[in-house]
Structures are given as structure tokens and as C-alpha cells.
């Protein structure tokens, strides 16, 4: 009975509940443009408890089966894995190096995947990518869509590439109206997907 009476207010409470989001840029560059795009995007997300991490803080030796067998998992791998497990949603902005993930990110994913695979089950993802070029990291987006979606079993609910970063992003703001609307639309879809799950 009490549950019935409280239905409306409890639903409201759920909608207001802070979503737990893990966010990181797939770059180890100090001047990462993907970090800039990520920060902008995170600022558009409401009602969220955001854990923004720098992958430089999870630098590990390059994955090798010999290292794993001899020394087990580095603490950084465990920590990163725990952060993923704690999150309901994950926002990633991907740097592209030679058409693929940066090694800095790939290495973390390789270590984490050895703890558990697939490790993104039930996680909802917002994927972004940007580059100075006109393709905006389209190649790494393709690789990542396949990898995070098919192999790591994440649910990619929203994604967009962001071309020609230096032309379209200035002073922490997207200056191209069309691209701005595109990013905001993906943020809305992502936020809605997380909210529906909770309700």
C-alpha cells in the first residue's frame, strides 16, 4: 500500500537520481583535443555523478601475457576495471592514431579485458571522436563501435564524430551550429537511455 501511494514521488526520485558516469578521453596527450570535446560534452549532461579520469593516471607496461603470468594485474588495471563496474554509463572521446585507438587506451583495454571479458555488459555508452582532419576520427570510431559494442558487449546508445576540431571548437565552445546540435542531440539520447533504465 505504501509503495502504491509513493509511486509518483518515488518515480520522481528515480528520475532525479544522479546517474553514475565514467568519462575519459582516449588520448595520453597533455593537449588532447578529445579531452576538450569531452569536457564540453560532460557539461551538457544533467543529474549525473561524473567520474572524469585521465588515462595518463593508468599508464601500465604494454600488455604481455608473460607480464600477467609473472606479476598478475597492475593495480591500475584493477582500478580502471572497478571504475567501469561502478558506472551505469560511460562517455569516451576517442583519439585516432594511424586509423585506430591510441596505444595508451588500447593497452588499458587489453589489461582490463583480461580481468573480465566482456566487461561492458549492461553499460550504456556515448562515443565521441575528434581530430584536426575532416574525417573527425571516423576510422577509430568504426573500430571502437565494433570493439565496444560487439566484443566488450557495451550498448552504444549514442555516438558522433566531430570533424576539423580546430575550425569548429574555440574557447571551450562549439562554434559550428550544426555540429553543436548534433552533439547535444547525442547527449539527450544518452541521457534518456540511462533514465529509462532507472525508471
Amino acid at each position, binding site marked *: 500500500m505504501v509503495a502504491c501511494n509513493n509511486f509518483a514521488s518515488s518515480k520522481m526520485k528515480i528520475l532525479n537520481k544522479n546517474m553514475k558516469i565514467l568519462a575519459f578521453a582516449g588520448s*595520453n596527450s597533455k593537449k588532447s583535443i578529445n579531452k576538450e570535446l569531452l569536457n564540453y560534452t560532460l557539461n551538457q549532461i544533467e543529474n549525473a555523478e561524473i567520474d572524469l579520469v585521465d588515462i595518463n593516471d593508468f599508464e601500465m607496461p*604494454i600488455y604481455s601475457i608473460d607480464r600477467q603470468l609473472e606479476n598478475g594485474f597492475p593495480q591500475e588495471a584493477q582500478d580502471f576495471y572497478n571504475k567501469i563496474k561502478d558506472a551505469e554509463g560511460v562517455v569516451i572521446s576517442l583519439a585516432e*592514431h594511424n*586509423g585506430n*585507438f591510441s596505444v*595508451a587506451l588500447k593497452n588499458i583495454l587489453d589489461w582490463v579485458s583480461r580481468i573480465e571479458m566482456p566487461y561492458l555488459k549492461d553499460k550504456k555508452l556515448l562515443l565521441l571522436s575528434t581530430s584536426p582532419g575532416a574525417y573527425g576520427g571516423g576510422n577509430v570510431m568504426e573500430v571502437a563501435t565494433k570493439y565496444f559494442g560487439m566484443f566488450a558487449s557495451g550498448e552504444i546508445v549514442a555516438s558522433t564524430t566531430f570533424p576539423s576540431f580546430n575550425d569548429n571548437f574555440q574557447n571551450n565552445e562549439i562554434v559550428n551550429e550544426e555540429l553543436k546540435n548534433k552533439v547535444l542531440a547525442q547527449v539527450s539520447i544518452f541521457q534518456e537511455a540511462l533514465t529509462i533504465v532507472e525508471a
Partner: protein
Amino acid sequence: MIIKAFAGSNSSTSINKQLVTYASSLLNKDQIEILDLDDFDIPTFDIDIEKEQGFSDEVKRFYQKLVDSDILLISLAEHNACITAVFKSYMDWCSRINYKFLEGKKVFVMSTSPGGYGAKNSLEIGSKLITKLGGDILVDFSLPKFNENFAEGKITNEELNRELILKIDEFRKKI
């Protein structure tokens, strides 16, 4: 003709190293240098390290090994449906010295894994990368279910062995 061979793996028991060593023996040329990525101490690619310190001697040493070759045999291990971080990092570093550093190299690219797909995801992604860096891939080959099909230094499955021999012949004619 300078021929070099290596596996895109840093495992001390790399099955790709075993495959590329066998393929090298079939090519039957006098001198083939088998490289091991583990003999080089190259960290994760980092643009800030490059800006602050330039290229390390180890990066230059690996780069020079590849540049000083005409023919490359490469067998790609697969981690997470992709090339390994170690192979990717080495390629990223070298590509920063000269983006087309594999220009003019004739390449035989292979892959193997314990699974039925034989690391074909890695073969596909790695081939794209090698091509982008200027390499000329003439032939490729993938060996599925390594543990069932390979023993004591060679392929034990006759059909697959014949396939590799034919592809090596094809490669020999093209180089």
C-alpha cells in the same frame, strides 16, 4: 634482398612467432633475420615524450631494422579483435619518424590464433595499417586453431600446409 620476419606479439611463447619462423623456412632464402619485438624496449606511444625527448635509441634501432629491408614477413597476434598494443605502439612510433616508412617493402602478412577465426580481425586491421604506412602486401595467410594445426615447428594439417606452401610460392614469384 634483405628479408626480415617478426611476429606482432611480445609473448615469449608466441604462436605467431612459430608460424612466421616456419613460413620463413619455406621461403628458403639464404638469410632471413627473425626479429623479436621483446628485444626492443619501446614504451606506449606518447606525443609529449616525443616532443620533450625525441625518439629513443630503441625506437630508432627498430625503425632502422625495418627500413633496412626489402621484404618483410609479419605474423599478427590478435588481442581484443585488434592488433596487439605492442605492435601498434612500435608502428605508431616509427610512423612519427617517417609516415611512409614501409614504402617499397614487399610484405607477406599472416595471423594465427587458438580460435577458429585465426586472428583474421587483426590480419585485416594490421594489413590496413601496413598499407597506410606504405607497405606493399602481396600475399596473406591465416592459420585457424593453431594448437590443432601446428606442431613441432610446422603445420600438421595437410590442406592448410599446402595452402601456405602455395602462397609462399606465389610470394616468391612476386618478389
